Structure formats: C-alpha cells, structure tokens
C-alpha cells in the first residue's frame, strides 16, 4: 500500500515534468513568447494583470494577421505564462524551463528579487563565449529596482526611469508651488525597490530641485504601527512629503498622518503605488497624493488596453501596460530582424531578437514614444497622476508642455 | 562506598527527602524500602544527579559528587535502572547496549574516533557479552519497544551493566514480575554482587526479594529514615510495620523524574 503510494507519487512527478514540455501542435506557424511573474502571495495581482494584458496584446496582434517571418510567411504569436511565486529559485527554474522550450523571448518577472538572480544567470556580454550563462532575451515589464538591466546584455526592461521622472517632478513642484521649501522623506527600508528609490532617486532629485530635505523616516514592508515615524515627521514640520513606499505601508502611514493631523501641503508617492491597490486600501487617506506614472488611460491606445485588460480579468496599470508595449515591440523586432521561428532556429532567433532590441532607439508606447537607453533600460513618457475621489486622475503631462 | 549525609529534596512545600543519612559499604546489597511516596526513587535520582539536592551531600568512594549530572555519575561508576523502564524503544536491542558503552575501562582508554564513531572491537565484544547475559541474543535486531515486559527489564539491567559500574542503583526492578521471574532476578543480583563484585542499592517493594537478597536495609517514610538494620531486624521493627500497614492501600507516584 505504502509502496503503491510512493510509486504513484513518483509517477505523477515524472508525468508532470514531462508534460510541461509538451504543447499542442499548431497547424500554422507560431512564434512563441513566454510570460512569467508572480501569481501567488501578496504580489499576485501583478502577475494576474501582466498575464491579462499580455494575452490581450497577443490576441490583438494575431487578429491583425500575426507576425511576418524572415521567409515571408505569417506566424501567429503564442504565449504561455508561468507563476514564479516571487521566489528567486522558482524564478530561475521557470526561466530555465522557458530557455529549454522553443520560446524566443521571456517577458517578466514581477519582482526585483527574482529579476536579480535571473539576470545574473544570463550571459553577461553576448560575445563572451567563456560565460556559460543562459542566452535568451528577457524583457521585463514590472521589476523596477534601479539599474538591473545592466547586469546582462540579454536583459531589457520597459520600466519607467525613476530618476528622470522624479527629477522633473520635483522641478515641476518647485515651479508650481513656489512657497514649498522643505521636504520630508519616508522609505520602506527592507524592500529593494522602495529603498533604492528613496536613497538614490527621491532624496537627491529633491535636493537638486532646490528643496531642503529636513529628514526622513524608515519603516519595514510588513510594519503596521507608524506612530513613531509620523511623530518624527510632525516634528520636522516639512512643507511636503515624499514617500517611497508600496501601497500597504503607504496606506498605513497616510492613515497615521491623518490621525496625528500631519497635513503637508503636498504628498508625493512611489510610482508603484499609483495602482489600484492604494485606492482599494485607503482612497480617503491617499486623496491628493501625486505620483509620476508611466501609464494612464489618456490616449485612445491606452484606453483600449485598459478595456481589453479588464475583459481578460486584469487591470492595466503602469506595470502591466508595459507588457502590452513589450509584446508590440517584440513583434516589431521579429519582423525587422527576420526571425524564422522554426525548430532549428530557436537560438539564432533569440540572438536576432536580442540584437534587434539592443538596436532600437525608440519604441512606441501607449502614452507616447519610449526612449531606449544603451544599457537595456528605457526612459518612458510619464504623467503626474493624483488620487481624486477614489480614482487616479491625470494632474499634469510633462511631455505636453 | 556511597555516603548520603543530611540529604534533602523539597518540591515546593513537599519534603520528598528530608535529612537522609545512609552509608552503603563496598560489596553490600543495600535495600531501600518504604511505602509509596516515601522518597526512595527521589533518593536514587539525587544520587544520580537527575535534579539538584536542596541540602546535604552525596559522596562516592570518599569523593564528594553532590549534584554531578547523570553522565558524570556514570563516569564515576554509578549506573542505574528506572522504576518504569526507560529503554530507547526505537533503537534495536543491540543499539541500546551499544550506546551504553561508556564505562570507565571501555571508554577512557580510547581516542575520540573509536569512542564516538566506530566503536572499537572491545565495545562490540562487550555488547555481545551483555546480550548473552541478558539472554536476548536472538532478539538483537528487534526494536527494544517490541520486547516483552520481562525482556525489557533484563535489557535495561544489561544496559546499566554495560558501563561496568561499581555501584548499581536498581529502582524497583521486580515490579510487575511473577514469582518465577523474581527468583531469577534474585539469583542474578547475587551473581552480580558475589561474582562481579558490584555493590547494589536496591529500591524495592517486593519483600520476598528484598528480605532474601540484601545485607542491610534502610526503611523510609515521608522522606525520613525510620529504621536501618539487617533484614531480620527490619522485619521486626515496629515503625516499619506501622508505616506499611498505615499506608499500604494508598497509591501515589514517587519520583518527579519518572513521571
């Protein structure tokens, strides 16, 4: 009986391992792209949104006839999506699986702590034959921690350039609110992205814009009690505050500020917080907070994506909307580089896509043109949005002026 | 050989052992009797250092060993058995004896590796010897927990002897035995005492055993010694009879360590 159970389990394991490789054979030519991200744990909504948007983008391209291959025939895009649980090892496993399949490019991941090791196991520079790292292009939509793509030449990102966004944001604040002099910071200290953004972005950019940083408070990702931090903030009597924090603690700190009647004249938030999460958690307390965001349904294209994402059971926000742009760019590169999408050309096609991506100087974005930087990063157009009556409303479009 | 001077142990307000003076001479089989709860098991536990004494001292072969922990007591040559058998029931019979090869002669002379890791030939030979002695040679690979009650008792005794002790503390070894088994035990104890020269402190209820095998007896009640003398003297002793008659119907647990 026991032995039966064991053999059953191992049979399931083997079957499952084998089964994952097999996909239904398609009658027509297909080019495969592989999405992955976190669909478990507290960051589940990110993965769900990315998957929905990617799915919508793939269907959109296919409905227009698909992608033209190097031999002139048309291919349909086919996508898969895997969950990495925002766990480094599982992310590696997923990426290896993608690399072992005939997918030409990987889109993901959600978490920066997964992106770090993933980019680490990639070959660092394409011409270094001695480097045994993986050779598959990754195009990242969500993981936003600063400076990641330079880890490998196979890594590309379509995430907002925070340095640029906050530089202009602070300047804009300086110009439009001349009576503001001092700023107080807040940083979610144990999360790589928020930490990086405060120390390397907000703090320095605010000073560059001529503000005096009168101090900052720190808290942790899962903290729930902010009395001390807000008291520090209160003592510093800043004109406005800049909070580098994800929605959960952002809500906590905003509520505490209300309670202690700390009412700065202006609040600035982390770009990742310009999502539904913040509004779900504390729309009242967040009222008025200004956040630079690389997505808002302001153009026709953006509106369409928002609607399609909705139909797929996700929502388009600054992270997931990037997946749409990524799929479009990939399709475009596939055509321009003459990808063959045959069984034998997988490795060549990957290299072609990588080189094509590296060559790009600009790409089309949903709210404007995206500048590609040399190190695989992007500078995306962005807007300043603010929370108004439980929704994100566009406050200002720096590109328009 | 073993001297207890003013030995006391209080658990909260309960005086389990209270100012006990006992001297066990080399070569004796010394009986410790008393009704349930009179402090016999506690005394054994104090000698072995299972818990710290409240007051008084224990000395062994002229050296003070009060409060030395059980493994040190064993190193000094004091081995014991438990009132309710405590074998390593998941380990095999053989392993039970093997882990117990920590007596002076078998251990001290060896280097670290043979002591802990492989176990040298001497240890293995010694295990075989004890298997033979306990009559469990054919059950060597059985888990100790699967043995019959009497076999467990024999194994526990063999395990205590594995350390080649000078003094053996037996805590009610005859509990639950039938008359035949008691008789065997009687012979075995005599053999150990006479042939092996092991001094024995016997805590026991079964009077057939105690009165037959011991050289000298101390009787306890409420943690105090109420009488000491030869078996014959104790049998005549008024106080002992009263203690047993007065309390014989009561049940209770004796030692904290065995619960």
């Amino acid at each position: 009986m026991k032995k039966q159970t064991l053999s059953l389990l191992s049979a399931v394991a083997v079957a499952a391992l084998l089964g994952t490789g097999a996909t239904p054979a398609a009658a027509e030519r297909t080019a495969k792209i592989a999405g992955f991200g976190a669909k478990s744990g507290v960051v589940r909504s990110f993965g769900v949104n990315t998957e929905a948007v990617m799915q919508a983008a793939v269907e959109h391209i296919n409905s227009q006839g698909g992608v033209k291959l190097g031999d002139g025939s048309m291919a349909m895009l086919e996508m898969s999506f895997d969950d990495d649980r925002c766990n480094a090892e599982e992310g590696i496993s997923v990426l290896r699986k993608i690399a072992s399949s005939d997918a030409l490019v990987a889109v993901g991941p959600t978490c920066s702590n997964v992106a770090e090791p993933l980019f680490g196991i990639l070959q660092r520079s394409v011409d270094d034959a001695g480097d045994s790292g993986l050779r598959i292009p990754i195009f990242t939509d969500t993981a936003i921690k600063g400076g990641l793509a330079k880890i490998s030449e196979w890594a590309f990102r379509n995430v907002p350039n925070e340095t640029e966004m906050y530089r202009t944001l602070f300047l804009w604040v300086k110009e439009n609110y001349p009576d503001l002099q001092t700023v107080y910071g807040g940083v979610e200290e144990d999360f790589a992205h928020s930490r990086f953004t405060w120390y390397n972005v907000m703090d320095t950019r605010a000073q560059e814009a001529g503000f005096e940083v009168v101090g900052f408070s720190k808290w942790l990702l899962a903290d729930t009690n902010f009395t001390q931090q807000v008291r520090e903030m209160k003592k510093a009597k800043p004109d406005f505050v800049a909070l580098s924090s994800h929605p959960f603690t952002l809500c906590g700190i905003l509520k505490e500020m209300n309670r202690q009647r700390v009412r700065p004249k202006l609040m600035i938030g982390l770009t990742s917080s310009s999502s539904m999460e913040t509004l779900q958690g504390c729309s009242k307390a967040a009222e008025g907070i200004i956040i630079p965001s690389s997505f808002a349904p302001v153009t026709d294209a953006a509106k369409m994506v928002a609607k399609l994402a909705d139909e797929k059971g996700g929502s388009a926000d600054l992270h997931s909307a990037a997946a749409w742009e990524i799929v479009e760019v990939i399709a475009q590169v596939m055509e321009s580089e003459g990808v063959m999408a045959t069984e034998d050309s997988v490795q060549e096609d990957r290299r072609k896509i990588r080189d094509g991506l590296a060559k790009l100087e600009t790409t089309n974005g949903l709210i404007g043109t995206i500048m590609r930087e040399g190190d695989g990063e992007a500078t995306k157009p962005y807007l300043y949005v603010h929370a108004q009556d439980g929704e994100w409303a566009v406050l200002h479009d720096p590109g328009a002026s | 050989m073993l001297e207890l001077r003013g030995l006391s142990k209080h658990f909260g307000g309960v005086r389990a052992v209270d100012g006990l003076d006992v001297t066990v001479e080399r070569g004796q089989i010394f009986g410790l009797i008393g009704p349930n709860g009179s402090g016999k098991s506690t005394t054994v536990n104090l000698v072995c250092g299972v818990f710290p004494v409240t007051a008084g001292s224990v000395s062994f072969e002229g050296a003070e060993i009060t409060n030395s922990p059980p493994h040190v007591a064993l190193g000094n040559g004091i081995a014991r058995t438990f009132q309710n058998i405590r074998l390593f029931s998941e380990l095999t019979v053989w392993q039970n004896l093997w882990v117990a090869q920590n007596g002076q002669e078998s251990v001290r002379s060896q280097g670290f590796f043979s002591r802990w890791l492989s176990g040298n030939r001497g240890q293995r030979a010694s295990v075989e010897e004890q298997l033979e002695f306990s009559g469990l040679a054919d059950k060597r690979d059985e888990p100790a927990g699967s043995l019959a009650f009497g076999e467990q008792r024999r194994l526990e005794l063999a395990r205590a002897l594995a350390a080649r002790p000078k003094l053996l503390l037996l805590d009610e070894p005859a509990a639950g035995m039938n008359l035949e088994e008691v008789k065997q035990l009687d012979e075995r104890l005599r053999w150990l005492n006479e042939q092996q020269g092991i001094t024995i402190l016997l805590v026991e209820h079964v009077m057939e055993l105690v009165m037959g095998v011991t050289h000298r007896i101390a009787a306890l009640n409420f943690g105090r010694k109420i009488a000491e003398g030869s078996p014959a003297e104790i049998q005549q002793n008024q106080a002992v009879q009263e203690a047993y008659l007065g309390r014989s119907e009561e049940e209770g647990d004796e030692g904290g360590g065995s619960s």
Partner: protein
Amino acid sequence: MEIEIFGWTLLDYFQTIVDGVLYGATYAIIGIGFTLIFGVMDKLNLAYAATALAGAYFSWGVGTQIPLPAPVAYVISSIAAGGFGYLVYLCNFRYIPSGAPLASLLATVGMLLFLEELIVHSTQGMPQPYPALFDDVMLEWGDFGMRGDLLFVFCLCVLATVFLLYVLYRTKLGMATRAVAQQPVAAQLCGMSVQGTNSTTFVIAGAIGGIAGAMIGASVGILSPLLTVPVTVKGLIAAVIGGLGSIPGAIVGGLLIGAFENTFQLLRSVTERDMYVMLLLFAFLAFRPGGIFGTASRHE
C-alpha cells in the same frame, strides 16, 4: 527640565513605551491563543495567526456584500475564526496521533500556507480596507498623544482576556479544559471527552483570535496577507516570553514586546529593531527558559 538620554527626552521614552504597549495588546491576544492551545494539548498551532486573519478577512468579505457596522464585523470575524479554529483542529490534530508532535507542527505550517494562499486568491493579494472604531480619535495632552483606536483595541483585548479567564476558571467547560490539560488520562477516566475538550479549546482560541485579527485589521485600517507571518512570529514570542501555557504570561509578554520593539526603534532604527528584539528573546530564553510566569518543569 529637558533631561535627555541618548538624545531623547523622558517624554519621548514615555510616549514610545505607551505606543508600544498599546500596540502590544494585539501580540498579547495572539499569544494567548498559542498559549491556550499549548496548555491543553502541549502542541504548537502555527496556523493560529492565519486563522485569526482569515476570520477578519471573512468578515471583510461579508462586509463587501452587505454594509456592516464595525462592531458587527468584529463579531463575525470572531465567529468565523472560531470555525477556522475547528477546521485547523480537524485537519492537523484530530487524526494525527498525539505521539507525533512534529507531524502536527508541520501540518499547521501547511495549514498556514493554505489559508494565506486562500486569502490571496480571494483578494488577488491586494490590501483591503477594514472598518475601525475611533480611528481618527487622538487623545492629546500637550506633546503626549495616544491613539484612540489603539486604546480601544487595548481595552477590547483586556475584555477578551477577562472573558477567557472567566470561562476557564468559572465555568464547567473551563474546568474540563483545565482537567484535560493537566491530566488527560485521568480526565478521560472520569468520563470527560478529551477530543471534545480539545476541539472546544480550538474553537474558543479561534474565536479570541478572530477578535485579535479584527483588531489588527482595525488598528492598521487595512488587511493584507503580508500580516500573517509577522503576527505569527510576534504572537509566538509573546507566548514564549510569558511562559508557554500561562495566560497572564502571554499578556505581559505581548505588551513587553510592543514596548521593547518601539524603544529599540527609537534608540537604534527600524532596521535594527527586530534584530535586538530577537537577540533579547534569545538571551531571555537561554537564561530563563520557563518564561516570566513559566512552569518549566511541567512541559519538559
């Protein structure tokens, strides 16, 4: 008048400690749950904090369907968590032999992961607003301030404890529970159902946890699955510092942790706060293994 120690005034310290103690009430109440189950079964239920939060989530879920006043939500949370507590008992203790404590321990970890993921999937992991009472009240005396909602949470925790002590020491059910805790075999011989008592304990502990879960949600104003692990760890520490099995111990333990972590945060920084709390706990356990109100000998 301004005496400064390490750069902070006495008022700062007082304020810090009061904040910490008030917030520590939630740790205390989770600690009570751990201690209660440990006291009766001698086992650890690591899924406890997860059931507490699951209760709160359940009441949030009901609240999305029909608008609920805060107190009603708290009661629903408590009832639901009681139910989850029973579920935990069934899945992790009822059918696993009592001689396999490690199996139960690990099963409760599985349960924790299961409940957490269930919560994630019902909310997509997004933080959800939870109704609070007095959450915009701030009692102030000069520079000194006290959060109204935390004060309320604190009072409710005290009430829950008093209620629990009443149940344990003044009702027949409580007597049975204590009897089973101390002498399971004897209790069984006297005709008490050990399983019945055990499951009742899980339900009661769960219900108390449901209140704690609701209070945590209320004091933060948001529910998030992020809370499960920290609350589990802090509640466990509270129970252990106080002496596992001791209800007053868990209370004191919880409040102490609240006070200590806030003080360390003031003196060092938030990043080092937990490091010192852990070090303190480690030292404390090594040198006073029984806890503050511990009966170390009983549970060896």
